Structure formats: C-alpha cells, structure tokens
C-alpha cells in the first residue's frame, strides 16, 4: 500500500511521512497531494496567532483538550521560526502540549518556517490539507510569534483567533493595520494579570463595530482567558463554533475558500514560473545581472525585463547586453 492509502487508513507514521514529503517539497509530494485533495474540505481550519509569549501554544493545548472531551479529533500544526543564519530551528510548542500526549485523536506536528515571512511555512497549507484529508475534524494552526504584519494565517484558516496579553502596548498599537484586522475572535489571555480589562477595553474601542456589521455581519468578540488553567477557553470554543456557523449560513465560507484558493494558485504559479525562468535562463546569467546591478550599470527593472524576455525566448542568451557606462 502506498503512503496515501496507508495514511487514509489511519496509519500515523504514513501521515507523518506525508507531511515530511510536503515540507521537503519532494517530487512525490505533488502526486500524494493530488490523491489526497478529493478528501479535503471537511475539517474546520482554525488559526491561532499573536505575539511571542502571549500563550498561543497553551491556548491551542486547552482548545484541543476541550475538543477531545466532545470526541472531536484534532490535528495541530505549530509553526516556529527558522534561523536566517544557520537554517536550523528550535521547535518548542510541544512543551505546552504535554496534556495531549498519548491521545490517538490528536496529531501534533511542529513546523519550521524555512524562510517564509508571513507567519507560516511555505508547506503549512499543504500540511493542513494532509491532516484534513485523513479525517481530523478540526485543524488548529499556530503561527510563529506574530508582530504586526504576519497575516498569512487569515488566508489559510476559516476562523482566525488573535491573542493579546495585557501590558503590550497602548491603543495606538491596536489601531495599527495588520494583525488586529484579521481577527475573527480576539482573546486577551493571561487575564489574571493586571491590566487585562484595560487591554480588552482598548481593543473594544478600536474595533469599528459598525463597519464590521456592515461588512460581513460578524462582530469579533473580545474574550478573556487564562489558558493555563482553562478559564474562558470554553467561551473561545463557543465563539469558534459560532463563527463557523456564521460562515456557513452567510455563504462566507465559500467566499473565503475561493480567496484562499486564489492566493494559493497564484502563489504556486509564481514559484513555478520563477523556477522555470531560472532554469531556462540559467543561474549563471542571473549572477551576471546581479553583478551589473551592483555595479550600477543597469537597474533592477531593466534587468528583470531582459531576463523575462530571454526566458520567453526559451534559450539562454549569450551575455547580458552591455550598456554605455554611466559617467561617475
């Protein structure tokens, strides 16, 4: 039996291997994903994001425990950053998920960003598909510790939970565009710390509730939790279920799905086209252009135009045409 059949049959190691294939962008992964794709689309995809140390892993752990008590199976993808210098990574999200060990209804996979900057790894989307296909009811996706602009999760998940912790900035921080805007549910975690109510009020003030109501009709609730002892977590789960219901009844689910697929298709297309261009033109040519740009002989747009043209012609050109040297 091949890996896909084994994974669909419930073999956990086959599932783990498939995620590795997807992560390593192995040639076999695309065949596997084609076979798995018809089985996807069943799971509810929930993103959990927020600043480092706000309690994402702990909340994911608490949510998964609660879901398991309702006999819902849970797949978890936890993303941590890759070092830009060594390519190594320390993936430590499992430390907060000890409670879930030994439960066959839970599968946790740690993932390094491997150079992606949007808060997820390149392969996160596909890894989520694998978990979805093999039948997990809910897939929880934990992003890297997010700052202000790691908003990719909103394209991957149907419901995005944004975590904040007390004392991390004033209202102006909350007013800034980006992370706050993608929240379907806002959670102030560590609510036993001083300032939690103030943080919640600050968030409330900046959420333009009227605009939200006119937009997609969903008012992001602002909830307070102490993820460590589970306080308030059932309210978060309730809000996730409500949001799912809202998406289904308003037709927004299909709309989000379409946006997600569009982004994904364009992304894959972009990578494929780039790879094709690079292989047609040859890395050597690209290096030559880089040198010329660095020497201020041409600018990056001219170089791109020339590279695209030679890529279209399908054959590598001999040498970049020399332009007249600019006077120094």
């Amino acid at each position, binding site marked *: 039996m091949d890996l896909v059949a084994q994974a669909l049959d419930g073999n956990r190691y086959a599932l783990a291997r498939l995620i590795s294939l997807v992560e390593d962008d192995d040639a076999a992964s695309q065949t596997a994903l084609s076979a798995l794709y018809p089985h996807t689309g069943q799971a509810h995809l929930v993103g959990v994001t927020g600043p480092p140390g706000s309690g994402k892993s702990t909340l994911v752990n608490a949510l998964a425990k609660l879901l398991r008590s309702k006999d819902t199976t849970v797949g978890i993808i936890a993303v941590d950053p890759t070092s830009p210098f*060594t*390519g190594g990574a*320390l*993936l430590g999200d499992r430390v907060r998920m000890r409670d879930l060990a030994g439960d066959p209804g839970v599968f946790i996979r740690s993932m*390094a960003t491997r150079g992606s900057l949007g808060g997820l790894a390149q392969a996160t989307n596909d890894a989520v598909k694998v978990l979805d296909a093999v039948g997990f009811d809910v897939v929880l996706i934990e992003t890297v510790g997010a700052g202000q602009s790691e908003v990719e999760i909103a394209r991957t998940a149907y419901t995005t939970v944004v975590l904040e912790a007390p004392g991390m900035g004033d209202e102006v921080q909350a007013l800034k565009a980006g992370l706050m805007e993608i929240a379907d549910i806002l959670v102030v975690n560590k609510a036993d710390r001083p300032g939690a109510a103030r943080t919640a009020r600050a968030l409330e003030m900046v959420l333009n509730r009227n605009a939200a109501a006119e937009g997609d009709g969903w008012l992001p609730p602002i909830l307070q939790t102490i993820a460590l002892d589970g306080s308030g977590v059932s309210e978060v789960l309730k809000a996730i279920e409500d949001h799912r219901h809202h998406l289904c009844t308003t037709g927004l689910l299909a709309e989000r799905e379409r946006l997600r697929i569009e982004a994904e298709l364009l992304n894959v297309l972009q990578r494929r086209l780039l790879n094709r261009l690079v292989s047609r033109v040859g890395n050597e040519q690209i290096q030559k252009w880089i040198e010329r740009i660095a020497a201020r002989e041409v600018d990056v747009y001219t170089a791109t135009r020339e590279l695209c043209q030679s890529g279209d012609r399908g054959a590598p050109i001999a040498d970049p045409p020399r332009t007249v040297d600019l006077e120094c």
Partner: protein
Amino acid sequence: MTEQLRVLIAKPGLDGHDRGAKVIARALRDAGMEVIYTGLRQTPEMIVEAALQEDVDAVGISVLSGAHMTLVPRVLDGLRQMGLDHIKVFVGGIIPDEDRDALKEMGVAGIFGPGSNTEAICDFVRQQLTET
C-alpha cells in the same frame, strides 16, 4: 531540495535538570538542524509518539536521574515496536562507565556525559544521520 535533518530532544523521567537538554537543542539548532524540544517529564511512550508524529531522524535523550537503564530501553523498544528502527538514539547526562556498553548493545548510537563538546555532539549526530 535537500532533506532537512530533524532531531527530537527529550527529557524522560522525573529529574528537572533540563539545562543540558536545552544546551544541546540550541547547539543542534545552530548546526542547522530542526530541533523539536519536548520539555520535562516525558514518559518513554510520549517520546516515541512525538518521534513518530514529527518524523525525526534522531532522538536525543537526557537523563540525570540515574534511571537511564530503565527509561532508555523503553524508548528503544517503543521505537522498534512502531517500526521506527531507523531513528538514531543518543543519550546525554550522568551515565556511569559501567552502563555504557550495555546501552550501546541495546542500540544507543552515542553517549555524551558532562563536559562533552557540543561541537563534537553536532558532528556526531550529523555523521550518524548522513552516512546511511
């Protein structure tokens, strides 16, 4: 695409001395590997399950409680039962000389006591994982 090496660093048993495990996790990270750190007080079963889910190439076990002759064989047996014989296991911590041969016979690939050079450990892991 080159395959990225993935290593699980685990602390079984009840001792709370995780400095060594963290130092090794950090060193392997700096050597360009993806290190999954489990945290304290893992049972051998939890370690085996984590190794399976994370599809790691190696498992590093840190034991300072003296319980290595109980815990390490249980991890090795668990990995074998799950068909994960290909995963290399190395052990760090306080391991008396008289236990070393026995552990190696059980299938432990390397043992590193106090004072071990982190660079040597990284080289060892990389070599173990790339020679096959």
